[in-house]
C-alpha cells in the first residue's frame, strides 16, 4: 500500500519510463477512445458506426489522425497568429500533466526497483488536477479570442463562465472526501478506501461499503455532474453547441494538426476526470468486491487491469449520457451550477464536518435515509400543490383567450387560422395517423 513517503525516491530512468508509458497510454486511449465512443453511440442509435478502415473500423481514428497530419495547415486571415498557434498547446499540455498523479496500482518491482505504479504524488495532488484544469481553460478562451470569429468568441466566453462555475462545485465535492480521508494525496485516498469496516446490529454484522461513492453519495453525484460540465461534454457542451455556434471555440481550426490537438485535449480531459472519479470515489485501482475476495487481487500488476476496466466503464457512462440526453440551455446550465450544485454542496459539507466532529461514523448513512424521507415528503407536497396548479390553469386560459382575439384580428398581429377542430387535423376518428399524401 503506497503512501506519500514512497514517492520521490525513483531513479531518473524509472520516472522517464513511467512518464513515457503514461503518455503513450493516453495517446492510444484517445485514438481508441474516439473509436469506442463512435462505435458505442452508433449501436445505441441502431446503426453500425465506422466499419471501413481496418477490422471493425478499428483504424478509423488512425486514418483520421493521418489525414489531419497531412492536410494543409490553414491559418485564416485576420487571426491573432501567435495566440492562434499557442492556444491548442495550452489546451493539451495541462491535460497530460494531470495524469501524473493518478495512481494505477500498488508498489511493484519494475526492473528490480521497488516503485509505486504512479508517476508522482504530492501532499496536494488532487488540487493539482484542479489547477491544471483551470490552466486548460486558457486554451479554449484564447482559441476563441484569437480566431476573430463571432462563433469562436462566443464559444470561448461561454466556456470561461461555465468552467469557472463548475470548477467551484467540483472543488467543493472533493471536500467531503478530504474530510473522510484526512489527506489530499491520491495514493493515500485510495488506501483509505481499502476497508469500510462493519456495522453491528445486534448479532448481525454487516460489512459496510468502502468506496466513497457509496459512503458519500451526494458528493459523488455532484462530482459526476461537474465532471460533465468541466469537460464540456453533452449535456453541457454549450461552448461548441453546433446548433448555435457551428463548432464554438474551434470553428476556425479546420481539421489540421491543431484541430487534432484540440480533440486530443478534449479526450484526455475526459480520461483525467474519469481517472479522478475512480481514484476519489470508486476505490481507485483496488479490485471491486467479488474479485477482492481473492487474496492476490490487490497485489502486483493486477490492479492495472481493475483500473483499466473501471476507466472503460466510466468512459462508457460518458458515451451513454451523450447518447441519451439533449443539450441544456445556457441559463439552465448556469442556474444548475450556481443555484443548485454549490448550495447543496455547502450544506452537505457542513453536515459531513459535523458528523466528523461528533465522531458519528455512520452519519452519512443515517443522513441519506433522512434525505430520502425529506425528498419524498416534498414530492408528495408538490404533487398535491393546488396553488401552482391554479396558477398554471389561469395562464393557459389567458393564452387561449389571447389566441382567440388575435385569430380574429390579423391587423393586430394575429393571422387567419382555420378552426383547429377541422376533421383532417386529427382525422375523423383520431385513432389512425393520416400519412402525408394520402388525403
Amino acid at each position, binding site marked *: 500500500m503506497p503512501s506519500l513517503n514512497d514517492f520521490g525516491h525513483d531513479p531518473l530512468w524509472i520516472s522517464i519510463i513511467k512518464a513515457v508509458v503514461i503518455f503513450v497510454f493516453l495517446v492510444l486511449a484517445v485514438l481508441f477512445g474516439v473509436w469506442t465512443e463512435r462505435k458505442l453511440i452508433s449501436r445505441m442509435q441502431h446503426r453500425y458506426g465506422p466499419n471501413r478502415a481496418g477490422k471493425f473500423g478499428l483504424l478509423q481514428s488512425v486514418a483520421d489522425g493521418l489525414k489531419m497530419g497531412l492536410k494543409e495547415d490553414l491559418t485564416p486571415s*485576420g487571426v491573432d497568429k501567435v*495566440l492562434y498557434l499557442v492556444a491548442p498547446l495550452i489546451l493539451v499540455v495541462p491535460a497530460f500533466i494531470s495524469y501524473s498523479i493518478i495512481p494505477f496500482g500498488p508498489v511493484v518491482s519494475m526492473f528490480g526497483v521497488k516503485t509505486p505504479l504512479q508517476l508522482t504524488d*504530492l*501532499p*496536494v495532488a488532487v*488540487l*493539482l488536477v*484542479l*489547477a491544471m*484544469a*483551470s*490552466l486548460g*481553460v*486558457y486554451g479554449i*478562451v*484564447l482559441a*476563441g*479570442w484569437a480566431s*476573430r*470569429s*463571432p*462563433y469562436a*468568441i462566443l464559444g*470561448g*466566453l461561454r466556456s*470561461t*463562465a461555465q468552467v*469557472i462555475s463548475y*470548477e467551484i462545485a467540483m*472543488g467543493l465535492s472533493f471536500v467531503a472526501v478530504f474530510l473522510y480521508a484526512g*489527506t*489530499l494525496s491520491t495514493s493515500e485516498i485510495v488506501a483509505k478506501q481499502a476497508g469500510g469496516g462493519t456495522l453491528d446490529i445486534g448479532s448481525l454484522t454487516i460489512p459496510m461499503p468502502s468506496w466513497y461513492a457509496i459512503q458519500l453519495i451526494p458528493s459523488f453525484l455532484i462530482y459526476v455532474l461537474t465532471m460533465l460540465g468541466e469537460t464540456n461534454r453533452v449535456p453541457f457542451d454549450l461552448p461548441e453547441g453546433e446548433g448555435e455556434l457551428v463548432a464554438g471555440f474551434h470553428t476556425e481550426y479546420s481539421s489540421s494538426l491543431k484541430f487534432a490537438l484540440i480533440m486530443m485535449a478534449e479526450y484526455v480531459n475526459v480520461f483525467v476526470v474519469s481517472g479522478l472519479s475512480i481514484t476519489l470515489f470508486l476505490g481507485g485501482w483496488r479490485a471491486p468486491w467479488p474479485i477482492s475476495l481473492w487474496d492476490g487481487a490487490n497485489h502486483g500488476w493486477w490492479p492495472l487491469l481493475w483500473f483499466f476496466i473501471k476507466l472503460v466503464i466510466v468512459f462508457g457512462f460518458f458515451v451513454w449520457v451523450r447518447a441519451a440526453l439533449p443539450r441544456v440551455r445556457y441559463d439552465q446550465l448556469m442556474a444548475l451550477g450556481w443555484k443548485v450544485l454549490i448550495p447543496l454542496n455547502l450544506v452537505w459539507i457542513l453536515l459531513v464536518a459535523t458528523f466528523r466532529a461528533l465522531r458519528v461514523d455512520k452519519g452519512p448513512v443515517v443522513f441519506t435515509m433522512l434525505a430520502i424521507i425529506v425528498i419524498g415528503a416534498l414530492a408528495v407536497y408538490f404533487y398535491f400543490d393546488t396553488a401552482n396548479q391554479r396558477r398554471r390553469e389561469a395562464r393557459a386560459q389567458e*393564452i387561449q383567450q*389571447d389566441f382567440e382575439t388575435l385569430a380574429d384580428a*390579423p*391587423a*393586430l*398581429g*394575429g*393571422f387567419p387560422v382555420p378552426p383547429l377542430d377541422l376533421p383532417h387535423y386529427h382525422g375523423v376518428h383520431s385513432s389512425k395517423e393520416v400519412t402525408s399524401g394520402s388525403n
Partner: protein
Amino acid sequence: MGETFVFWVLAVVSVIAALGLVFSRKAVYSALMLGVVMLSLAVLYAVQDAPFLAVVQIIVYTGAVMMLFLFVLMMVGVDSSDSLVETIKGQRFWAVLAGLGFAVLLALGIGNAFIGPAKGLAAYPQNVPSLAELIFTRHVFAFEVTSALLITAALGAVVLAHRERLTPKLTQRDLARQRFKEFARTGRNPAPLPGPGTYARHNAIDKPALLPDGSIAAQSVNRYVARYEKAEGTLPPEVAQALESDSEALELEKE
C-alpha cells in the same frame, strides 16, 4: 542547487513577462503576461516547499482572477482602446506615494529576512496539516475577518448589480408574440436575420448573402466582422455601400 537554478530561470522569465505586461499594446496580451508572472510565482512557491500555496496560487489567481480579467476584456470587445483621461484628481501624486510606500515595505520585508536568523520549516513537517493548524488556531481571527471582508465585497456587488423586477419575465412565447405585433405595426421583419453566404460564391462568415437579383443582402453582413474589416481597411467597397444604403441595418447598428 536546483532551487537556485529554478530561481534564475524564472527570474528572467517573470521579469520579461512583467515588462511585457506593461509595454504590450493589446490588453489581452497584458493579461496573459500577468498570468505568466503568476505562474512563475507558483513554481517558486513549489520549489520553496510550499506546495499548497503554489497550487492555490494557480487555482485562485491564474484560474479565477485572471480568467475573469480575460472574460471582461473579451466582453468589452477587442477594439476598445484605453482611455488616457485621468479621472481621479491628483492621481499621479497618490500613485507615486503608494509606489514609494510599497518600495519601503518591500525593503523592510527583504531586510528582515536578510538580517534575522532563518526560521526553517523544521517546526512544521507536513505542509498541508501544519498550514491548516496555523490558520484555524493561531490566525483564526485574521482568517475570519478576511472572509467577512470578502463576503461584504460580494454582497456589495450583488446589491449594486441587483435590479428589482417590475414586470413579469418574458417567455419565448411572449417574445415571439411581441415580434409579430411589431411586424403588424411597423412591418419590421420578425424572422431571424439572414445568414451569411447564402447564394454567394463562398459560405464563409464574412461573405454576405445575395438577394435574388444578385445584390448584397445588407442584413446578412456580420457587423462584428465588418467592424474589424473597417478598422483594417479591408471591408469590400460594395459591402460598405450596401451597409450604408440599408436603413434597417443602420437602425440595427444604432441599437
